[in-house]
């Protein structure tokens, strides 16, 4: 079976939501882009703030283009929890970094979706920034206030919080036309300006939802064997999407799904678990079962939270307890 966009002569779905791949220009956000580029150059910590699906990653991609070769980009939402920023820096320094553990200087670190970053990593980032390994750091997230930044990090960011603008209606129209590579309101246009505006409104002005809905409408038009979008096709927006629909759409539009599984694994496939604010490997590490702090075999009490561990009676038992959770 053919798909709608192939029938219309597109090689790929024009509404893909894959900021790493698509090459269309950023629409709007001129002031924000200028400020971010300035702060990045002058060596600051900046926070890019915008709701989910409103184009943060696309925005960051545009920033990256201005600093070729100097950027380390990390999507914290995709990270395994055991990430160590130090390793990242070392890897960037090529072979000599791997052998001698040297780190490059003056790099720019971009942490996308910082909501998911652990506190220890934030402290590491602060250290590398203070020591001059990192020239600047750009964080992106949905809400600065709700992120658990350590106070010392918060004061380094100060007021350097850049709020992305919501796309204007006219910009949403431009976005759709850019994607379709079409001109507006000719007799044979696939879609009319007023229709695009309507779709943007019913997508609650969220760019990601907007692109998803455009895709749904064009697909509907294809099923209908029509040549132009009509009011009838717009009706599909009234249908609610269930879980399976969302899954399928995500796949079709290449949206990165970020699943939060109960069992977690690190990059080498070891099972990890979350205790307090730490991620631990129960097979290898000995930690306090209450707060997650690393403890030594001889500790009778947790040095961090003070909980007293149970005494193990027999020799065999204590060996077993050497690794894993120390019971409070």
């Amino acid at each position: 079976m053919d798909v709608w966009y192939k029938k219309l002569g597109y090689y790929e779905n024009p509404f893909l939501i894959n900021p790493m791949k698509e090459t269309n220009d950023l629409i709007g956000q001129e002031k924000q882009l200028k400020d971010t580029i300035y702060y990045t150059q002058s060596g600051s910590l900046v926070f890019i703030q915008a709701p989910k699906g409103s184009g943060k990653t696309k925005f960051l991609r545009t920033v990256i283009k201005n600093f070729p070769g100097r950027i380390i980009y990390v999507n914290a939402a995709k990270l395994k929890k055991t990430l160590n920023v130090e390793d990242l820096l070392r890897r960037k320094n090529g072979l000599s970094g791997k052998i001698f553990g040297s780190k490059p200087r003056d790099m720019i670190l971009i942490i996308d979706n910082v909501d998911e970053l652990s506190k220890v990593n934030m402290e590491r980032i602060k250290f590398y920034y203070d020591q001059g390994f990192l020239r600047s750091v750009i964080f992106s997230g949905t809400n600065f206030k709700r992120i658990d930044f350590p106070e010392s990090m918060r004061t380094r960011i100060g007021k350097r919080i850049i709020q992305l603008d919501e796309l204007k209606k006219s910009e949403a129209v431009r976005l759709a036309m850019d994607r379709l590579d079409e001109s507006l309101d000719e007799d044979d246009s696939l879609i009319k300006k007023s229709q695009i505006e309507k779709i943007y409104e019913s997508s609650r002005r969220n760019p990601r939802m907007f692109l998803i809905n455009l895709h749904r409408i064009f697909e509907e038009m294809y099923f209908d064997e029509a040549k132009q979008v009509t009011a009838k096709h717009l009706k599909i927006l009234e249908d609610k999407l269930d879980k399976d629909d969302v899954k399928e759409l995500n796949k079709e539009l290449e949206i990165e799904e970020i699943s939060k599984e109960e069992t977690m694994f690190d990059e080498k496939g070891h099972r990890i678990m979350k205790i307090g604010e730490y991620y631990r490997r129960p097979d290898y590490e000995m930690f306090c079962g209450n707060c997650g702090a690393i403890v030594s075999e001889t500790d009778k009490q947790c040095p961090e939270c003070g909980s007293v561990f149970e005494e193990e009676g027999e020799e065999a038992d204590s060996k077993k307890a050497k690794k894993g959770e120390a019971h409070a």
Partner: protein
Amino acid sequence: MRKEKVWYEKLGYKYNPFTIKPGFFDDEVVGYDKEVEKLIKQLNTHTMVFLEGEYGQGKTTILKYLINEFSGKKKVIYISRNRSDRAMNYSSLLKGASKGLGRLFGKKAKNTILIVDETAKINASDCAQIEDYFDKGNFSSVLFIDKSMAESRISDSIKKLIGKNIVKLPTLNPKEAVELVRSRLDGNKELITDDQIKKVFEKSGKKSRQFLLNMEDVCRHAVESEREAVSDEDLKVL
């Protein structure tokens, strides 16, 4: 590709003169001469000291200054105790700090100064090791740096050893704030007046870091508005 010059480049600076990176401009511990002198004196004796200061007051800047000051005279081991929750291995740190043949045979260095920045993740094992090597003379002196000793996680016995050796950083006064800016601007007197600097300082809650960030915003605004000197209009960005 970026071509346009940013404000400080237009003024002839290669780097942002108001960067908040500690020790980027190695000259300065403006306003803390007395404290620094006291610290140097104490660290030259067998003692433990705690340096207290608010966020953004310049603790790490002073630390960098101290490391510079002691370089070539005494071995300094500097650790930032907030990057991992595992206790440090002080024995290997000391081995790494010994020289020549001693290093080859895994001898531990003597008479070193230990500086522990950010004591947030320090634990009982750290404290015990530090105390032990302090008693044995491997660490001739130890400096802890954090917001407050009372809130710090260092052990009670170390707190006892520190005793009254707490150096607290005072807040900058407006005169020192002006001095800081003048030193950063390296002789440029036209850009901003002393009174304007004091105003920015006042609006920054007298915190050095916030003050530097604000100074950057004000000066950038002035240059980007194509003014040669900061006007009251630029102060409004705060």
